[in-house]
């Protein structure tokens, strides 16, 4: 980064203990089924499991063969089967099929299901309904927290978002509470907890309950402040195209569990390689938070430095050469490898993006955020729909809808979209509407009229159910007002130098400060929600701030855990890192999943297979 961190910023706690904890528990659970056994692992648990325990560790504990859960009949010959799965009804049903098939064939085996991070009653009901409740033993592997990096902890629960915010299914709330509880029991006690959003509040309450039930030990706090935020507080940020390096890599190559697969076009060879992207990668660590336009400059500078380092060996005598080879060369080689990878990746991204009119897209997004030149934006979107560039172009579309739309445009765009991508997207639209991402303005009503009307309803507590019904509406049309009040969109007449960022807006080329991060900044600055009453009203309330009666420790106080319920983007993480450097904080991001615009929209699709 161009400028270094403040010298007094606190040290981050060590998260490797979380991995050890999870591993020990898993081993314990595996030992509960003594003897050789085959292990079936849910597909999206593969990578997280990889971070915790490798194959040889599993083999040590008598795991014979490893399989991925593929919803097909199994071919295992072992007489002990162990299933490591998420508590999903679909998977449990598959296990039932496996067991029943064995039964029908007269084979008797031992089965064990390990649910992670917890089991749900519904899963047991399925076992019961399928008549195999007595044949399998079940267990829970309380693997909640997976440290992805030194400041990112992931729950790896992408379904949290859809279940909670779209389906209104609150079963993950307790999971969130338990995750926070686990974190609290290792790195707490927290002295301040802030939060906004309905789910945040419920998670907070679930956590409090668990704290009350458990025993408390007085410990030195390593993390003192917590901020909980619902994804539905800020839908705008994840819908924007990311331009910070790490975010861009995620948008294009999809980072999976801290690991990305670079295809042949990046590696300039015929095979693809998997690369871990975290702070261990020195090159990546320096560019991850940079705006993409700076990355090439930085990389070429780096390349030149590398060259000079290589060049040193000219004119060395034998002895110097020996030390060079033994000490520096390996590091240089490594750096070389990484550098060429990232250069390759940047090139490949650049190629892809130019093909897709990236700049046009950005411009449209920015205009939408500012609320200018709406006509042009509509025709841009229209054109993209007509040309069928990618169905994910729903993002700017919903971004547009989100900020309010006249019914005429809404209908015509929707009709064109359906023509392009098929009528099944009717359901997608229904989902988006349910979630509040699509708002159809009533004809004859301007934004402000709606706002004030809804505002009154929201304030009137007796309105009860009516408020609930309308609040979703009220919340959605508020982006403009919020943007003004929090000045999320910097004045566009000034030149924004992306090399020396002024504020968090740099992550969107200086066009927009992410709402979520702005809220965090404001609350930390004000030490609560005072003065933000109007903002929280626009966000539909559910904010809270709790200060515990603990002796504040300056260092722990400045390490802040931000828990995103429903996922967060790499851009937001970059923005928080920036904020941390500016204010001398350290942020730890605890999220249910890493998300981006594509994943957000994909979660809204109804796949009917």
């Amino acid at each position: 980064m161009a400028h270094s961190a403040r010298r007094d910023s606190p040290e981050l706690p060590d998260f490797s203990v979380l991995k050890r904890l999870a591993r020990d528990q898993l081993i314990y659970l595996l030992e509960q089924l003594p003897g050789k056994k085959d292990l079936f692992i849910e597909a999206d648990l593969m990578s997280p499991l990889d971070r915790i325990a490798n194959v040889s560790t599993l083999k040590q504990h008598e795991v014979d063969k490893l399989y991925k859960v593929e919803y097909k009949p199994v071919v295992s010959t072992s007489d002990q089967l162990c299933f490591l799965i998420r508590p999903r009804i679909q998977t449990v049903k598959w296990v039932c099929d496996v067991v029943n098939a064995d039964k029908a064939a007269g084979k008797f085996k031992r089965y064990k299901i390990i649910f992670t991070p917890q089991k749900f009653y519904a899963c047991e009901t399925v076992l019961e309904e399928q008549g195999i409740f007595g044949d399998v033993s079940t267990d829970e592997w309380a693997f909640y927290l997976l440290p992805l990096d030194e400041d990112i902890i992931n729950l790896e629960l992408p379904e949290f978002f859809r279940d909670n915010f779209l389906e209104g299914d609150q079963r993950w709330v307790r999971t969130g509470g338990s995750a926070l509880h686990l974190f609290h029991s290792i790195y707490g006690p927290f002295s301040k907890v802030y939060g906004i959003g309905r789910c945040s509040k419920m998670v907070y309450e679930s956590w409090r309950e668990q704290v009350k039930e458990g025993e408390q030990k007085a410990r030195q706090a390593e993390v003192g402040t917590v901020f909980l935020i619902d994804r539905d507080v800020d839908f705008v940020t994840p819908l924007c195209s990311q331009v910070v390096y790490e975010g861009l890599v995620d948008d294009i190559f999809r980072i999976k569990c801290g690991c990305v697969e670079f295809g042949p076009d990046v590696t300039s060879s015929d095979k693809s390689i998997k690369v871990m992207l975290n702070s261990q990668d020195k090159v990546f660590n320096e560019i991850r938070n940079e705006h993409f336009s700076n990355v090439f400059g930085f990389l070429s500078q780096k390349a030149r430095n590398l060259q000079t380092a290589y060049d040193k060996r000219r004119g060395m005598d034998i002895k110097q050469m020996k030390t060079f080879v033994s000490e520096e060369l390996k590091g240089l080689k490594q750096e070389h490898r990484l550098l060429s990878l990232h250069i390759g990746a940047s090139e490949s991204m650049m190629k892809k993006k130019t093909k897709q009119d990236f700049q046009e897209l950005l411009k449209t997004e920015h205009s939408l955020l500012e609320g200018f030149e709406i006509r042009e934006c509509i025709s841009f979107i229209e054109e993209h729909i007509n040309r069928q560039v990618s169905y994910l172009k729903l993002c700017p579309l919903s971004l547009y809808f989100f900020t309010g739309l006249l019914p005429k445009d809404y209908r015509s765009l929707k009709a064109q979209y359906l023509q392009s991508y098929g009528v099944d997207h009717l359901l997608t639209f229904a989902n988006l509407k349910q979630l509040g991402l699509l708002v159809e303005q009533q004809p004859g009503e301007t934004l402000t009229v709606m706002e004030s009307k809804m505002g009154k309803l929201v304030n009137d507590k007796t309105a009860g159910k009516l408020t609930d019904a309308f609040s979703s509406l009220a919340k959605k049309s508020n982006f403009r007002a919020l943007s003004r009040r929090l000045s999320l969109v910097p004045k566009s007449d000034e030149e924004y130098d992306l090399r020396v960022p002024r504020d968090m807006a740099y992550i969107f080329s200086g066009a927009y400060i992410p709402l979520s991060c702005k809220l965090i900044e404001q609350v930390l600055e004000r030490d609560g929600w005072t003065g933000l009453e109007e903002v929280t009203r626009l966000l539909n309330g559910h904010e809270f701030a709790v200060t515990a009666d603990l002796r504040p420790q300056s260092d722990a106080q400045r390490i802040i855990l931000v828990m995103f319920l429903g996922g967060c983007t790499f851009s937001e993480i970059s923005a928080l890192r920036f904020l941390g450097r500016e204010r001398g904080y350290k942020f730890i991001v605890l999220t249910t999943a890493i998300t981006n615009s594509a994943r957000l929209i994909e979660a809204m699709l109804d796949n009917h297979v």
Partner: protein
Amino acid sequence: MAFITANWNPLGEAFYRKTELYEMCWNLRDGLRDCLVAAAPYGGPIALLREPHRRSPSSRPQLEIYSASGNSLASFPWKSGPVVQLGWTVNDELLCIQEDGTVLIYDLFGSFKRHFSMGQEVVQSQVLEAKVFHSPYGTGVAIVTGSSRFTLATNIDDLKLRRLPEVPGLQGAPSCWAVLTQDRQTKVLLANGADLFILDNTSCTAVSPPGLSPQVSSIVHMSVSFSYKYLALFTDTGHLWTGSAHLQVSQSALCLSSMWGCRRPKSQQPSVVLMWDRLLLVAGVCNDIIQYPHRPCVCVGELDGVRVVSSSRQELLQEVPLVCQEIFKIASMAPGALLLEAHREYEKCSQKADEYLREIKEQSMLGEAVRQCVEAAGHEYDIQTQKTLLRAASFGKCFLTDFSPDSFVATCRELRVLNAVREAGVGLPLTHSQFKQMTVQVLIDRLVYRQFYPLAIEICRYLKTPDYQGVSRVLKHWASCKVQQKDLSDEAIARAVCLKVGDSAGVSYSHIAAKAYECGRTELAIKLLDYEARSGEQVPLLLKMKRSQLALSKAVESGDTDLVYTVVTYLKNEMNRGDFFMTLRNQPVALSLYRQFCKLQEQDTLKDLYNQDDDHQELANYYVTASYREKRLESRLSVLQSAVDEYNKAKNEFAAKATEDEMRLLRFQRKLDDEKGAGLLGLSLQATMEALLALGLHKQAEQLYRDFRVPDKRYWWLKLKSLAEKEEWEELEKFSKSKKSPIGYLPFVEVCMKRHNKHEAKKYVSKVPPEQKVKAHLAVGDGAVLARCSASDRLLIDKLNRARATATKK
């Protein structure tokens, strides 16, 4: 003070004393004659069954329960079958063993709790004799039946009946028998005439105690000590044999005439108490005896003595504890005795106090003296004596610098508690050693069983017992008892309970509510459940009480979805469908949970659910989803038609129209597939048109364009792309001239360049409006530059790209 030794009697080297515990407050007209009597150890209650053999319905035997001090707790006529034996469990429950082997359990206040049977075969053969015994496993019952078989139950709370093997040669009841607990095994020792047998689970072993005189023709009585360590046998020849319960060491043989019963107090030296009609006799190892003339009475074996209950009073017969002996023995020079004397002189303001003190100090025995006094105070029953001893100890303590006051303080506290429970009103005559053995928790339990709640709470607070073992536990019992009071209204009880229990940690309102429900007070139970903080505890009981609506809302409040789910599943099975859906409708959280489940498990239920709610929009969406599961086109179309109907009902004209279009498109695709084998079915409109153009079916594409009112722009884009793809440049040119392009001419340039056809591209550059001209030229020219250098120079591309980026941005 000098009279303390007045009731001491020497036996060998030890002394025995008989202390009066209570003047019994009961009023027994006929004394204890013709009664079945059972008294529990540790100052336990006394049960009497008067004239147990009376069977006529007109005059039934009377069962009476008294506290140890003779306070009547319950009295009622016995209406069940003839009782063979009474006994008390460790939880102060009364066991009444009937002739037919049924054991009835009553609580202290005479209310029936439950019953169990000692086995089917007993009903035939009848119980001849029975014994209740206590072991580390709890309270047990042993019986001997008319067929001379023994049956044992080691713990009545975890009933496992064991039928012991047959005893050879035994006819009817044995002459005497006892239950032993040895080596974690329960055995029966019995005598048949002069033969002794030990019965365990598997075998019957004949044994002979060493040194038992050979003339003996029958053993008439036997008794086992409280600790199961010692055994006494009494023979028809009037010999008493005592020894260890393992029948190994013979201790002595003593000649007496006849015996009623014998009990053995635990003490320094084992000794036996024998009881005749008018005589009580203590026999020790040393062949010495003490005789007490006595009215008819009952003996209760205790840990450190024997309680002797007669119709008028109750006494404790015990060996004088060593430390008391040392202090109070006449002319004792033990340090404790001297300290007591010193203190006495001190109170008289006599200088002799100093002399005594010096004497103790010279032997540096002051610490020992204090300790003795404290210990002796614990063993004394008389409050005055306790005080005197403690004062002396306190006095002696003043002259010690590093003496830990803990034992003194603890003894003071414990004595206060003991004196409080010994009060005749409470009636728990516990000695200090018994108290130590039974622990405070058990004492609290005993008080709670007797419903002395305030006293129990005071004791907990006084002894600083942790809340969850102390006050909370008492409150829980109190509340459970309170809810059974039939004369109070629900509100009054709920208020009273809430007032007292409040937020005490460890008291579960659901537990109390469950109790209330057991007593048939559902409304009260619900009121109480309102106070329960943990919803997880409320819900199961509410379900049990069939308050399913309430249970559901509580579950939802708790935020625990598993709990919600439990209720939902329960409701699903309990209610009819309509009611079930109605219930769900009022609980959106539960409803969405159930919907989630249905989506995966029961699609049809989902439909019913939407139907019930008249949620046409969701229903229509459901049909759209369902249409994709249909394999055949006809059924797919019919499902889609249902969707259209529902959309119309939901006044969602847009969606209805879109669905209708889809149906039309499907039919069209089907037709073409049949005619041309185009493989279009299921594609979107755009994809269909694209495929048609690619196949060269321009006419059909045009038809779609018109039928579905495809925007001009879209159609132009499609056609443009498809023509360029196939490199039909002439067609393209024709197309560009067919009418004014709705998408402008820049796309023409771009598609040509995409196929690297600069020549064609240039044709359209001229048509591009001036504001896009630069872009067009750039596309044509730039593309060439890019193509040339892409392989060679990275940095150049880099720069170029950046230039492009800034260019487009501005």
